[in-house]
């Protein structure tokens, strides 16, 4: 992995950091609002796995921020570069498709983790959090961020226009994240929806992440690790193949 890779990674991080009020502060504020509203309504009424609702909600919001921002980072960077044409600056140099992939995905993970940490920092005052098994917290944050960063690369390359990217985001990413147990335990759902949720990989990301805080979860963290790890491998192979073929980037 050469200096070309590290420069692209650095540039991708710098790109979001230069506009941190939009890319970091705004999503942290949004999550904080979710927390204030939902906990105001539900705290004291709902306990999940014996955990107070606000405490249950916080890791879900943190992970949702990690995922959405990881996706946003690679996808918006790529579509902007394509639409403005400055994508040539990274296509002309001797950067391999593997380095290209890794730089975009890692920068997405960084953005996801930075926003997730911001949300955690802004919300952990509201309820006691356990940090019972921190290795799971880290593992699921990193893998979830990488998966969504990878999806962002796919969406950014596939979309020709901003509204196509918005469609990808609104009809795929948003439903998957909202219907994954961020706001509730899937055990509280009717059987049909419970079964459906078990087909949603994002459910395992959130559930495994939450397990790291409380030591309890809907599914076994090892099952979640297997599902999330499997998804990461599949998406990585798929995205690398797109890049190798030069799909939509090298006509």
């Amino acid at each position, binding site marked *: 992995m050469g200096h070309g890779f590290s420069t692209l990674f650095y540039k991708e991080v*710098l790109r979001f950091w230069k506009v941190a009020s939009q890319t970091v502060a705004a999503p942290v504020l949004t999550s904080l609002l979710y927390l204030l509203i939902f906990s105001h309504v539900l705290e004291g009424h709902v306990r999940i796995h014996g955990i107070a609702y606000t405490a249950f909600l916080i890791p879900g919001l943190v992970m949702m921020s990690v995922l959405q921002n990881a996706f946003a980072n690679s996808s918006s960077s790529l579509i902007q570069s394509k639409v*403005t*044409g*400055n994508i*040539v600056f*990274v*296509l002309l140099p001797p950067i391999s498709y593997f380095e290209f992939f890794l730089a975009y995905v890692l920068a997405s993970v960084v953005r996801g983790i930075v926003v997730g940490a911001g949300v955690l920092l802004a919300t952990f005052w509201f309820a006691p959090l356990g940090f019972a098994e921190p290795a799971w917290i880290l593992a699921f944050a990193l893998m979830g961020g990488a998966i969504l960063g990878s999806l962002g690369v796919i969406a950014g390359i596939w979309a020709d226009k901003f509204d196509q990217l918005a469609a990808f985001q609104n009809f795929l990413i948003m439903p998957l994240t909202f219907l994954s147990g961020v706001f509730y335990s899937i055990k509280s759902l009717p059987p049909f929806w419970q079964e459906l949720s078990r087909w949603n990989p994002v459910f395992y990301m959130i559930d495994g992440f939450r397990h790291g805080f409380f030591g309890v979860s809907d599914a076994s963290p090892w099952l979640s690790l297997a599902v999330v790890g499997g998804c990461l491998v599949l998406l990585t192979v798929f995205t690398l193949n797109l890049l190798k073929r030069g799909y939509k980037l090298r*006509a």
Partner: protein
Amino acid sequence: MSAAIRIQQVSKCFGSTQALDRVDLEVAAGEFFGLLGPNGAGKTTLISALAGLVRADSGSLCVMGHDVQADYRAARRHLGVVPQELVFDPFFTVRESLKIQSGYFGIRDNDAWIDEILENLGLTSKANANMRMLSGGMKRRVLVAQALVHRPPVIVLDEPTAGVDVELRQTLWAFIRRLNEAGHTIVLTTHYLDEAESLCGRIAMLQAGRVVALDTTARLLLRFSSHTLRLRSRGEMPADLASGAAQSGGWWSFPFDDFTEVEPLLAKIRAAGCRIDDLEIGKPDLEEVFIRVMQGQAETPAN
């Protein structure tokens, strides 16, 4: 003579458009080479194929002996491309853009060379300005600078002077000429044929994806253009003279190859009783060559 660029039997289709049709081209190291052709001839496509931005359907392309697909890292390290489109990254300043571009090519401490490029392109005072704040011509200069950060031995400029002022043209060409004298191979596309004529030692003309002319600038001028005697006269032009001339807007144009033909021509006109009101001599120019080649008067070069 080692080849800086070797293009062999390269074809490329976009849907039903044949953008390149079995293009063969070789540019020797140290040449100043012109790639001319009307809009849509395939110049940008050929450059893109060389840069790896477009994949040729068939044929092979090499930069300094490195295949652009099989050995793309070496090929790209040896090539600097100034794209035709005016593109920039609005997140960065001029200097940041150049440092990042250096990094992409694996170069760490490039400040001395970046300063030199900035100086030569008249960008020093804009070094810390954000890209968005620059005028179109200034952005064009930064594009040139970005193509040079890794000191590529082969530099390809795709219409670098489209829509830029006289000053930039002169600074740009002076700089590019110096680079050429220092041994860099230069390939240039432009629609300003006077520019190509004064800069390029050799020229290829593309039409509908095919190379329709390929020769030294001097030989192309000699072959397809001539001096012309242009005059405005009163009185009847003798028929034998009028048949070898073109007339437009009251001016007669007589092509000639040798200056010794001028005096007898003028003598005949005088003898016919014509009075000459105005007279000038036009030099052969590339525009005439270009028009005649595009009209199909050039033989297809043998493969």
